[in-house]
């Protein structure tokens, strides 16, 4: 049971490791790494599924009668291509996120989004328009200050590391 299904045990372990990384880590690159491990486990699953004991590569030859099933291998080639495309897209998104937010940590990105949302909801609360103008200007100023402070913090963090 344990040895006969060795491949499948590996698949399950890898799959769980991958999913755990995606869920547990806040760093966007690490999340992608987790996703790739998760996808790779599925590739291994397809490949081991098609292996026939004692079977060889499906090339016609005189003294061979048993072949492995080539179809899942072909299928998984397609899935690998899809996986690469996904990874490439995810990485390029991370590059853009880094450009816009100045960070690739989930928490810091979330907090920046929340800041901009708070600003908008405060605008909603104040009905008086003249105050609204001033208020929003102040808010804008405050948020930009806060963002600057954050960026400085990151830079300092980087130096310490």
């Amino acid at each position, binding site marked *: 049971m344990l040895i006969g299904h060795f491949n499948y045990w590996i698949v399950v372990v890898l799959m769980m490791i991958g*999913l755990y990384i*995606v869920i547990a880590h806040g760093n*966007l690159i690490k*999340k992608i790494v987790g*996703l790739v491990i*998760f*996808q790779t486990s*599925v590739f291994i*699953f*397809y490949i081991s*599924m098609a292996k026939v004991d004692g079977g060889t590569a499906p090339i016609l030859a005189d003294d061979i009668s048993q072949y492995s099933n080539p*179809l*899942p291998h072909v*299928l998984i080639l*397609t*899935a690998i291509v*899809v996986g690469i*495309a*996904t990874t490439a*897209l*995810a990485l390029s*998104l*991370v590059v*853009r*996120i880094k450009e*816009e*937010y100045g960070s690739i940590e989930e928490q810091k*990105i979330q907090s920046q*989004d929340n800041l*901009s949302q708070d600003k*908008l*909801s405060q*605008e*909603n609360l104040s009905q008086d*328009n*003249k105050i*609204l*103008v001033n208020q929003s200007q102040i808010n804008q100023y405050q948020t930009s200050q806060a963002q600057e402070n954050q960026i400085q913090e990151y830079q300092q963090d980087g130096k310490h590391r």
Partner: protein
Amino acid sequence: MIAHFPILQVIIPLMAAPICLILKRPKLVWLFALIVSGLAFSISILLLQQVMTSGVISYELGGWQAPWGIEYRIDKLNAFVLLIITAISTIVLFAAQTSIEKEIPKNKHTYFYVLFLLSLTGMLGIVATGDAFNVFVFLEISSLSAYALIAIGKDKRALWASYQYLIMGTIGATFILIGIGLMYQMTGTLNMQDLSQRLPEVAQTRTVFTAFAFVIVGICLKLALFPLHLWLPNAYAYAPSIVTAFFAATATKVAIYLLIRFTFSVFGLSFSFTTIPLQTLFMALGLLGIFIASTSAIYQNNIKHLFAYSSIAQIGYMIVGFSLTTVAGLTATLLHLFNHALMKSGIFLALAAVMYRIGNVQLNSFYGLGKQMPLTMAAIVIGGLSLIGVPLTVGFISKWYLLVALLEQGWWPVAVLILLGSLIAVIYIWRIVEVAYFKEPLLNNKPVKEAPLYFLIPIWTLIIANIYFGIDTRLSVQVAEAAAMSLFEVTP
């Protein structure tokens, strides 16, 4: 020529996408994409006609016979869904050029159309194909272009939303891939028709249970079924408006189609609903989705956010109808598929028009907008009434069929809950109506003009369709009923 329609439907947008890159000039590309989408639309009409009169169309790709080669199989169900997708994409594309002017950087306009057509290809492919692995491939084509489309705009929050969607979507698609692999392991086939014949023999094995669980969870992630909906609100709210209008009306519908296809056609009715208490599970999740998402919608100040939550609630209604597993229930789901596509794309296009004129869709920008943009706001109101389910709109028709289906089974407590859910919709629609019509514009808000014709024509086409199909229900009900019956294999 007619024999090749099932593949042409998918191939035409696929081929057109790279041609867009050659044409280069945005105006030209827009016209080209519009024509391509219109072509796909007319093919889908012809396909639906053909299916309604002469039954299932089976197309063998490259001449390889069905269980070995890839088969495209058009029956009443997918002809109906194809029609919905192509119709919405054509109407939405009409407004695209004007809308993206302000929301997408100039140098990316051509890419927008390329991605749009690829996404369309993916969705059409998922629906048209009769091969389980093909579903996965097309799912990824449509999803990958969807992630890029969401992130293409100027709003930086869209990047983060798109990233989250990518993670969730990829996990969902990989789950489906695992499920398909397990099914292949047990049956040695990928053809849906063939699978449905071979699965019953091995139905009581743990492998098939696992396959079923993986496929269902994977699809539900794509479907944004509560509680797997977390990617949806931000993705819809921060994407360029035109993208939101397209996806809100089509992307989740395609996932619902997949759910129906896998549970009814591939795994078969008796397996799907007896081995796992799917009925209770979906009923509960559907109802929870309706209430929690509708309630969240009330508290949103970004109107696109508001309607994104409302979309999740509407998916709840479809799932409730689906969980009944009766012809009437499934008819209600299919009807709502069609009707919800009409109202949501109408509303989101109107929001795109607001976005075009004002630059944001925060609630406080809507103060007094009823006088400044009367036609656009009227469209939102009619679309909203349709969401609530007021008579003479399509929303009423689908709610009515859903209630009848529920009462037929004697599930009146659920029927009461559905009605209560609609009342919550009244609250969030009213918030918009109140500020738009009964409040003076804020001094801070610059006065604006009515939206340009490029918006008004598609918006009002959809809104008039909302009213038309709310009165003359022959077409939609007939097709939905026939599709539901064919899934239960009941002869009318």
